[in-house]
């Protein structure tokens, strides 16, 4: 199932893009970037619903009716939940809409990682497995093996810029890409972070904000660690995906640029 519906289409799409690009040096990196754009386009409606959901949730924090029910049913959780659900329904807001695209990202990340490793075919067995993955209508004997060089990187290996001295915990050198991955992930997460109204009694809002705050720390660290450890092709995907996410969110005009600064979340909320 995983092989047929995730790995095989991804590998073939990557190879097809790579072939179209002329399969020269650096082209597999460009293929990953274009592939990411295609994935972003396919998941655009989901991302849009995430943006819409996040915006709706954010607007709710400043909504009088929403604030009233927080106060009114502060001691009656069940009733509060019912009222919240009613408002969600009335306003057409799906409180889980912001989670779905993130969850969908995971199989894509895992699939893409496996696809890159499969396409790179570092060992004879990998190469043999690659031949089994290719659709019969693809003529790939001209393009295999793929040229794994992209800029200064080997896309099949973790990235690192050689240092003039040895650092035991940085066996691959200075991890520039991992830092860029962590940074762009941080920016994307922060931009989409909901603001917390000052002195808010809304526990749900506080929870959401705290969750987002946690995510803005854990996600960059986790993806940065992925970039540090795994094939640099996956880092190219992360960075492209993050940049597209930032652009997509910024295009709505709702990006909280103040969130990028320390304490920006609170200042932003206070303005409102």
């Amino acid at each position, binding site marked *: 199932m995983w092989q047929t519906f995730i790995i095989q289409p991804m590998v073939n799409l990557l190879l097809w893009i790579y072939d179209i690009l002329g399969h020269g040096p650096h082209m597999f990196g460009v293929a990953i970037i274009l592939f990411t754009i295609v994935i972003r386009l396919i998941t655009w409606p989901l991302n849009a619903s995430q943006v819409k959901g996040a915006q709706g949730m954010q607007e709710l924090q400043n909504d009088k009716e929403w604030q009233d029910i927080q106060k009114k049913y502060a001691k009656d959780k069940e009733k509060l939940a019912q009222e919240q659900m009613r408002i969600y329904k009335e306003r057409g807001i799906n409180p889980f809409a912001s989670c779905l695209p993130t969850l969908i990202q995971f199989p894509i990340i895992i699939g893409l990682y496996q696809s890159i490793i499969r396409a790179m075919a570092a*060992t004879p067995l990998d190469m043999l497995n690659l031949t089994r993955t290719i659709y019969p209508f693809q003529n790939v004997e001209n393009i*295999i093996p793929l040229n794994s060089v992209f800029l200064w990187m080997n896309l099949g290996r973790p990235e690192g810029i050689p240092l003039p001295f040895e650092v035991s915990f940085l066996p691959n050198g200075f991890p520039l890409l991992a830092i860029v991955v962590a940074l762009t992930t941080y920016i994307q997460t922060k931009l989409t972070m909901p603001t917390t109204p000052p002195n808010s009694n809304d*526990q749900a809002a506080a929870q959401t904000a705290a969750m987002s705050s946690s995510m803005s720390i854990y996600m960059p660290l986790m993806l940065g660690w992925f970039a540090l450890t795994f094939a640099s092709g996956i880092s190219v995907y992360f960075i492209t995906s993050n940049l597209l996410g930032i652009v997509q969110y910024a295009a709505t005009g709702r990006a909280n640029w103040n969130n990028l600064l320390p304490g920006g979340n609170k200042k932003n909320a206070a303005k409102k």
Partner: protein
Amino acid sequence: MQNISGKGIRLSVVRSKTNLNRKKIFVILLLTLVALTLSACSGQPLTNTWPGLSADAERAYLATGSFIYAVDVTTGREVWKYPAEAGNSLLFYANPVLTEDGQLLIGSVGTTHAFISLDPATGKENWAEPFAGAKGTWVASPLVMNGIIYAPNTDGFLYFLDMNGKQVADPLELGGALWSAPATDGELLYIASLDHHLHIVDQAGSIIGEPIDLGGASPASPVAGEDGVYAGSFDSTIGFASSNGDFQTIAEASNWIWGSPVLDGNTLYFADLNGSIYSVDVSTGSQNWDELKPDGPIVASPLVAGDQIYFGSEDGVLIALDRDGKIVWEKTVGGNLYTQPVLSGVAILVAPYQAEFALAAYDASGKQAWTFIPVKE
């Protein structure tokens, strides 16, 4: 009343914090799960391939994962293994090479990219330290000629070492990953590359002419013929490259050709990933038999021994053919037979990938003599 209300608020705050902690734990668990999944995907990719095998009259030398095993070919018992303990620094799957001066040479795909020499009798290291000057790993076996070790590496360079493991010349960049041992006609070296080309090099390390375009990647060694070599590729063709750089296609297969062809007199035997087996008279270019497809895909090179030709299939079947293409016998070995069968005395040795045993010996009638199962660490 105030007290009760206060307790209620505290309780609510406690619940809220509990919910928050649960969500945090959920997020951390989810991310950890992804990390573990990706880690599982990566595993140790370089170890994950089929074994290398060679033999002399007394022992088989099996390179599989962390170890090289010497196995007594009469009893199937382990004589020695190298290294003593498994580790990521040394991993093997090239075919070990025995030299005339009594060395067993093999490169590693482990983290140190070490190229080592062992004593075939004891498994002890011969050199003071391994050669570790290559940027890539050693998938290919070396060729030893006139006291020089010609070692192709996945970094695209051909390395020149003396018999003590010291570099005698600067490495020669050929391009593409080099996965197969050079072939020689006694004068020149012919090196197939994944860059779709066959490179011709003289013994001094100078490139002769332009690389020959094979039309596809060539993961296996060419086989020496008269004043040239026969080489197959993923282009599903096999051709003859002469020492002056001319190339002529002599046969077409129905799928990619992976394993090296074998030349026996004027007959060239080879197989493809469709599982078709071919026999071509190189003097006329004609096929000796109609389509023969006894079993699954064939990756391994065949072995010609006595009156029989042995092919191992991906489905784990060892096939013995006579020279007319008639199947003499078929034996299910198990696992996948990606490694070329090797002859030691009268024993046909096969090293299956992912089978219940790592090595097995058969006689010419197809009777299994023994199997070798390494002791698990």
